């Protein structure tokens, strides 16, 4: 008689890919309860959530617009996690990138786009990198846990933003808590007329490709993956753990900063308090869903972008609170995390 036994051993590779795919229907079953609490039909709700946004060209493009910063924050978090650095600070690094880009965009006057756009990209990257620097240095020099410091840096930059917008950067014309407009030469060009889709998505896709190449095809990537698996093992193998980790942490911060620059240069054209509203935290969801792989991250970012857009559609069409999107996103994260346990087990046939 053939019997199957469950034992603790790494599951086959396809299981890892399958987990996020199983997680999606499980999430929708769980969140149906929340939808029914509001007396709505979950099937109709999911139609508006997942299908309706893709049904018209303008809303499908809006999905890409929403995905643009998510691709970057997801890539930033995945890059850090892959290298064994728990960067929880993508939210703050995004804000720092947005602040730096706003500084560049409001300082330059009448620049040609050929100079203005690269300046915004460099500014955003530098801002995110600088904001990631203290936590990264403390980690590698003094062994201070990066989770707490990157998290606290998020809170600090929110206060800094609020200070700038209510103080020195307050718009002198409208007196609203928003910065003056950036120079037209620093605005990211639209990719399609009469849509909000902008050059930032090309930056994001380039970053995804480069990070895939660095992680999988360079000796640096080999080192960072080794550290991600085991710091002690990597040290034993002669890898300079501190130096590699510092680079990983700073690049991750820079990528998150690019997301902030994109929101300023492509969407708002000035700095506002709500420039992110959780895009950095969504990056953690996306990195997890995407299995820390750049291509998985891209798919996850598009999916979360779809959920963000769908939350608006469902709210307009059925009057469900827009926060349903947050509930679905976070449930998806928790379900995926729970299911990841499956990869520690495999079925084995016993005779």
């Amino acid at each position, binding site marked *: 008689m053939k019997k199957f036994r469950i034992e603790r051993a790494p599951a086959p590779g396809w299981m890892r890919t399958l987990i996020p795919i199983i997680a999606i229907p499980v999430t929708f079953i769980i969140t149906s309860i929340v939808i029914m609490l509001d007396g709505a039909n979950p099937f109709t709700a999911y139609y508006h959530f997942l299908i309706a946004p893709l049904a018209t060209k303008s809303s499908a493009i809006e999905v890409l617009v929403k995905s643009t910063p998510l691709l970057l924050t997801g890539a930033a978090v995945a890059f850090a996690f892959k290298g064994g650095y728990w960067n929880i600070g993508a939210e703050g690094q995004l804000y720092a990138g947005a602040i730096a880009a706003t500084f560049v965009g409001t300082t330059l006057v009448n620049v040609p786009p050929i100079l203005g756009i690269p300046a915004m990209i460099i500014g955003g990257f530098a801002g995110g990198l600088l904001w990631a620097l203290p936590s990264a240095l403390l980690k590698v020099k003094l062994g*201070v846990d990066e989770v*707490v*410091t990157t998290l606290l840096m998020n809170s600090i930059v929110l206060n800094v933003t609020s200070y700038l917008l209510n103080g020195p950067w307050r718009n002198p014309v409208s007196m609203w808590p928003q910065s003056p407009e950036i120079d037209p030469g620093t605005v990211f060009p639209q990719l399609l007329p009469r849509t909000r889709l902008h050059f930032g998505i090309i930056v994001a896709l380039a970053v995804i490709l480069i990070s895939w190449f660095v992680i999988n095809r360079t000796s640096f990537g080999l080192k960072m993956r080794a550290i991600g698996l085991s710091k002690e093992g990597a040290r034993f193998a002669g890898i300079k753990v501190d130096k590699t980790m510092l680079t990983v942490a700073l690049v991750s911060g820079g990528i998150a900063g690019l997301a902030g620059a994109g929101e300023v240069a492509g969407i708002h054209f000035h700095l506002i308090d709500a420039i992110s509203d959780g895009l950095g*935290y969504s990056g953690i969801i996306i990195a997890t869903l995407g299995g820390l792989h750049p291509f998985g991250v891209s798919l996850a970012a598009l999916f979360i972008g779809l959920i963000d857009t769908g939350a608006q559609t469902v709210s307009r069409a059925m009057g469900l609170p827009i*926060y349903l999107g947050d509930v679905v996103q976070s449930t998806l994260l928790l379900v995926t*995390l*729970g299911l990841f346990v499956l990869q520690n087990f495999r079925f084995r046939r016993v005779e």
Partner: protein
Amino acid sequence: MEIGLFIVGLIAATLRVATPLIYGTLGELFSERSGVLNLGIEGTMFLGAFAGFAVAAKTGSLWLGLLGAIVAGVLAGLLMSLLSVRLGVNQHVSGLGITLLATGISLYLFRVIFGESNVPPAIEPFPMLQILPESNVLAPITNQYLLTYIGILIIPLVWWIIGKTRFGLKIRAVGENPEAADAAGLNVYALRTYALMIAGGLMAVGGAFLTLAQLGSFTFGIVAGRGWVCIALIIFANWQSVNVLWGALIFGGVQALQLRLQTLGFKLPYELFLSLPYVVTIIALTIAGRNASAPSALLKAYRRE
């Protein structure tokens, strides 16, 4: 006299600001002493604020509201335990997931229950205790909410539970060395789960204080990073319950001072003041460095072989 009134007002405000932080930090203390960093705190406090308000508004009883908040907080703790203890999921990511879910659910249900009205719903909050007559100069200091007094009295209680009881000893054992605790016959999973349930309940009371006592209404920015302040305070307090009081009072004092100075017309970059606790914590971590006496098994999921 003027300065006397100013100081009395300052102390009174300090105690009010410190109250939710005391509950939140004591909750996080239970969690971390058992070996789990609970980043679900920010969301759990928000959930407590919402659940307390919603139950109180619908039943008309503030005490039922408080109970509702505690139940919601304990449930959030159980969910954290399922993920980070039973399934051994990475604590940072599961904690943040709890915060995102608890925040999303609260906002969603608030809209479902109270709709989208222009006038925010309100309840009659807990009154302040009348310990001294209003005419007394010191009345603002003594006449606080009952929850503030309970919060201050819970500190020695937590110190006693964690430091002096068998249960506390077990919690510390699983937080310091789960393998040895297991070998000694302790159930690591169950103990960490109890710690997380207590933690969730305390955090939720901290959030519920804001809606049920201080404000009487629920706003979307109500918790505004207080959970993260608690994460900072616990490091500042070096994981000792008694130090939690000083940390919360110092932070509350700075906050109260900047609010007072602002109302007196001083032009202060108060947003930068608000960052002080975070900056101080990062500096404290730097000074303590590797010597910080965090529980040894913090962040490590325990897996029975």
